[in-house]
């Protein structure tokens, strides 16, 4: 059950701010062909990957003769058959800040599930038979599975190849590191009245999106390579595949159909390079997809981290110094390694305006599944630690946790200088807070959870079922400042409709709807007049892709600019028909109005422009920001702890979020609620478990526990609207921020109920019971 916030304040906007239906909703609920796999190609081959059974091994020799000889097999590829181009699979703007440590196929494998070889065959059965016929002569190397010992002298070196670049210190398995500070934390600690230092641990979480990775490649009539793929980053994929296969960008077309979810797992080139290579080798269309089982460990995960936080405060609750040390594992390859971890510092520490901040971080390689981008991008780890610690400090000081947060939280007009130190892979830009609804989020959220009445106070009372409430405050960004950019293109049709072409990538988030709303509002037309298409590298303008909570603000900004230009063009033609100066005209209700009330329809204007003036009204625009306005969120949890089983059951989750202006409140609430579901999994159940040899033990939906509908608590979502000057119609973002506070709010609520702190995720009943028992 979800309690929605009251509707946004009445405004004169006709489309923006309205709870309109998703523009692609109908085709999805009626099961129309919309997804990558929904296409039938004659002669389609099935690709399969031979996955490494070893966590760490060298391929002394590989014999594919028997596989190639099998009838129905059209291509068998190993490292011997493909170009060796070091690259990163991270879908980031060029030049990517991730190390180039990955190869299409290699003579070394670095985790269970790593690519050994690939086959394209007429049927799946033949392809799998061919995999079994490939003979590999292995030199098995010691696995490296423990991040706390990955840098120990004598540990096996995971990236010993000479041609990788951008690795911080390959000989020590150190993929990247970050060391930055503001002020002088040691001096700050000397000034502090109370210092707490705590360690927190977070697990490997898997995206578990509905649609696993899938790609279909073919050569078109002009012999160009077409890549139809479920991706968040079509334009990066085009660039990466061109580089890896050494073919010009002009010979590649990437089509992104409707996507069945990604959560960051598709901000990455995962299968496209290999599928393209199989198509080039066989000359035939090839489909390559992960099974659900493979998706769990052959795609990407969230980075597991060990965080050690030290915070010093004054007796009055003023935070003076905060030192965050992070050890993170990127797994076998370093995609997103320093950027995700950089965000653990840059988007978390500045939430509290301490004069002395320090962030030290090492990201190590392990022979484990590869980590990558994942909703929150380093923040869920950082906020679990930070929000647990400030809660503990508030308790120690005898302060209300909300009051403590309000006292220290960043506010409108503040400039966050840490962001200037911690850009994505390079120096960033300072962040100025132009809108901040955090106090209102805390106030409304506290009222919704019943903060005053429900608080237990962190003491263990008698009885089997104990209840408590907890809070966490968090922020995120809206796009990467100075990096993310997007284009949009609009043209007018003679019936008053408009084609909107964007490179932005709706992965289920609803961005197609939001972008169409922005265009419709700007043009003064109804939503059905906007025909949005996303995305195809041949037909839509460039967009970095769907990540970093950027689409509404960055792609939306481009759409708004393009729509303004088209509106101005339409007004110029309407001026001829209305006999009034164009600058006096107003567009609304699918018409253009002159000051006296006289009007013409958009269709009439379009017909006039096309057939009279022989002009196609069309405009494009690009957009980027030099700042990344943070959305703010207060997450409240009420939990029940069963002292007989140790089970922590969420009872009520409240998300009060300042997202700027909600372009579509219904979709925004959906994003917030989805984030809570994924955040609860992170807090209480989800963890990809590896055994002593690096093999996944629970790579299926039976044993990897995501929250189901039955496990969801009561949800309340409160949209706190602020006006963000940098966003289209005042919008910021909503897609990620809601996940950050769930785990700490739950942990703090569990403390409130029991008096015990839980510093390791997921909070498992066996661990809770052990802790409860220890106190008795």
């Amino acid at each position, binding site marked *: 059950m979800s309690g929605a916030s009251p509707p946004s304040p009445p405004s004169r906007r006709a489309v923006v701010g309205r709870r309109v239906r998703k523009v692609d909703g109908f085709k999805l609920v009626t099961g129309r062909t919309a997804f990558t796999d929904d296409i039938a190609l004659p002669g389609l081959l099935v690709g399969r990957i031979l*996955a490494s*059974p*070893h966590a760490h091994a060298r391929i002394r020799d590989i014999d594919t003769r028997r596989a190639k000889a099998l009838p129905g097999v059209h291509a068998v590829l190993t490292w011997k058959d493909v170009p060796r181009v070091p690259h990163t699979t991270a879908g980031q703007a060029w030049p990517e800040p991730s190390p180039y440590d990955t190869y299409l196929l290699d003579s070394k494998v670095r985790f*269970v599930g790593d690519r050994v070889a690939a086959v394209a065959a007429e049927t*799946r*059965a033949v392809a799998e038979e061919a995999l079994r016929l490939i003979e590999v002569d292995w030199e098995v190397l010691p696995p490296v599975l423990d991040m706390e010992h990955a840098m120990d002298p004598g540990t096996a070196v995971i990236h010993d190849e000479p041609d990788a670049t951008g690795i911080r210190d390959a000989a020590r398995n150190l993929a990247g590191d970050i060391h930055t500070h503001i002020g002088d934390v040691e001096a700050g600690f000397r000034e502090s009245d109370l210092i707490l230092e705590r360690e927190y641990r977070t697990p490997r979480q898997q995206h578990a999106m509905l649609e696993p990775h899938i790609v279909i490649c073919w050569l078109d009539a002009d012999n160009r390579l077409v890549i139809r793929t479920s991706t968040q980053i079509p334009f990066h994929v085009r660039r990466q595949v061109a580089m890896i296969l050494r073919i010009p960008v002009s010979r590649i077309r990437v089509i992104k159909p409707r996507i069945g979810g990604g959560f960051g797992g598709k901000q990455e080139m995962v299968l496209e390079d290999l599928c393209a290579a199989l198509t080039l080798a066989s000359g035939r269309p090839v489909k390559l997809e992960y*099974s*659900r*089982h493979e998706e769990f460990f052959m795609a990407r995960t969230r980075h597991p981290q060990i965080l050690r936080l030290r915070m010093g405060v004054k007796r009055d609750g003023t935070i003076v110094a905060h030192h965050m040390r992070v050890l993170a594992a990127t797994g076998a390859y370093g995609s997103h390694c320093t950027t995700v971890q950089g965000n653990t510092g840059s988007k978390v520490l500045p939430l509290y305006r301490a004069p002395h901040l320090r962030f030290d971080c090492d990201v190590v390689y392990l022979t484990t599944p590869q980590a990558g981008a994942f909703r929150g991008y380093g923040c869920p780890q950082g906020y679990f630690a930070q929000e647990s610690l400030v809660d503990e400090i508030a308790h120690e000081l005898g302060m209300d946790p909300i009051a403590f947060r309000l006292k220290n939280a960043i506010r409108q007009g503040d400039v966050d200088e840490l962001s200037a130190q911690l850009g994505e892979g390079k120096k960033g830009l300072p962040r100025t807070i132009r809108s901040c609804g955090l106090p209102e989020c805390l106030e409304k959220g506290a009222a919704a959870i019943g903060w005053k009445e429900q608080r237990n106070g962190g003491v263990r009372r008698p009885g089997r079922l104990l209840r408590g409430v907890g809070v966490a405050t968090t922020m995120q960004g809206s796009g990467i400042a100075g990096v993310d950019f997007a284009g949009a293109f609009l043209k007018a049709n003679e019936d008053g409709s408009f084609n909107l072409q964007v490179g932005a990538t709706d992965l289920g988030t609803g961005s197609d709807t939001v972008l169409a709303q922005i265009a419709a509002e700007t043009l003064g037309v109804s939503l059905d007049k906007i025909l949005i298409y996303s995305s195809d590298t041949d037909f839509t303008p460039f967009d970095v892709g769907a990540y970093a909570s950027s689409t509404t603000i960055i792609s939306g900004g481009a759409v708004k600019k393009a729509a303004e230009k088209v509106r101005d063009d339409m007004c110029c033609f309407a001026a001829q028909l209305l006999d009034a100066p164009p600058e006096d005209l107003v567009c609304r209700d699918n018409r253009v109005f002159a000051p006296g009330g006289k009007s013409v329809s958009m269709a009439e204007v379009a017909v006039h422009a096309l057939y009279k003036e022989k002009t196609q009204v069309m405009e494009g625009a690009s957009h980027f920001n030099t700042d990344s306005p943070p959305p703010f969120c207060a997450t409240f949890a009420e939990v029940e702890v069963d002292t*007989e*089983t*140790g089970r922590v059951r969420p009872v009520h989750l409240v998300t009060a979020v300042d997202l700027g202006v909600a372009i579509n409140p219904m979709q925004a609430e959906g994003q917030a609620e989805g984030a809570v579901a994924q955040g609860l999994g992170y807090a209480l*159940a989800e963890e990809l478990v590896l055994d002593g*040899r690096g*093999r*996944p*033990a*629970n*790579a*299926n*939906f*039976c*044993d990897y*526990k995501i*929250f*189901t*509908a*039955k*496990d969801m608590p009561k949800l309340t979502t409160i949209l706190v609207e602020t006006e963000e000057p940098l966003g289209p119609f005042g919008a910021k973002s909503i897609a990620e921020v809601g996940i950050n506070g769930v785990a700490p709010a739950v942990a703090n609520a569990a403390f409130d109920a029991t008096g015990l702190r839980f510093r390791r995720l997921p909070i*498992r*009943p*066996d661990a809770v*019971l*052990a802790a409860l028992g220890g106190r008795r």
Partner: protein
Amino acid sequence: MMRAPDFRYYAARSVRDAAAALEDGGNAAMLLAGGTDLVPNMKRRTQTPALVIGLRGIGELRGVRAGGGGGGGGGGRRAGGLTLGACTTLAEVAAAPAVGRRYRALALAAGQVATPQLRNMGTLGGNLCLDTRCTYYDQSEEWRRAINWCMKAPGSNGGHACGTPDGASLCWVATSSPRCWAVSSTDTAPALIALGATVTLARVAGRRRLPLEKLYRDDGMAYLTREPGEILTAVHLPAAAGWRSTYWKLRRRGSFDFPVLGVAAAVRFATGGAVADARVVLGAVASRPLVVPEAATLAGSRLTDEAIEPVAEAAAALATPLDNTDFALAWRKKMVRHYVAGALRELRDTPS
């Protein structure tokens, strides 16, 4: 998506027909009811029958009817009772008014298996014959190949349709052990054993009836005493007069999950309120459902906390969870105590 290997399918028209096909098929044949256990196993290649004999079209195997409850261990109460066809779906069992409150443990157990979709397909017979489960067994073929298989599923070319050991290596759960430790994970078996159920097994040569408890063996591979040509056709419940029962299932989520622990408890109260008869059966803590003999000590008591505690303690001592399912094993053992005590207290405290 994982796909099933090729196999022949025979849609049996009657029990006799199925039994003949099963006998003809020998080791290469397996029965399929709802298929919710067998088909996933075929996809993972842990079970690879060349011949699959479908039972779903056999009308006589479906439905719940009164009577037939006499037989094994029913004391003086042989008349009456209930007979459930083996192919009755779990959804039907959970919703059947005749099961309802009288055989509450069964309704609760059947209603908590897996998910609604799986309960619509899965059958009572399939649930009772459910394959045992293990972290090292319920994995894809590639995964198991990478660990060099295990004794329960030794390689893909073994032709071991019924789990017969050949080319066996070892048990990864306890590498020095001569036996397989896969876990019995059926929800309904503990409930039915607590309710005193018997089952009928049919083969070409005839039928036999045995207490359900006797259907199971403490061996992760040969976990049933069912003979190769036998089909489980029906489950019989003795009359329920005077009995109260319940089933407590421990799992991580509110849906979907196999039991980490199942506790079935049934108590018959004499007039006057003292316990006349009590049974406690554990699921998912061994390769077979475990009857807790100490439950007999409850007779004559008023199910006080003092009477319950030693039974709960004994149950926990009996359980031998191993490191092959969800959660730490010490915790699972601890949970046995709480769940047994909780289930018995519930029977004491709920008015009949």
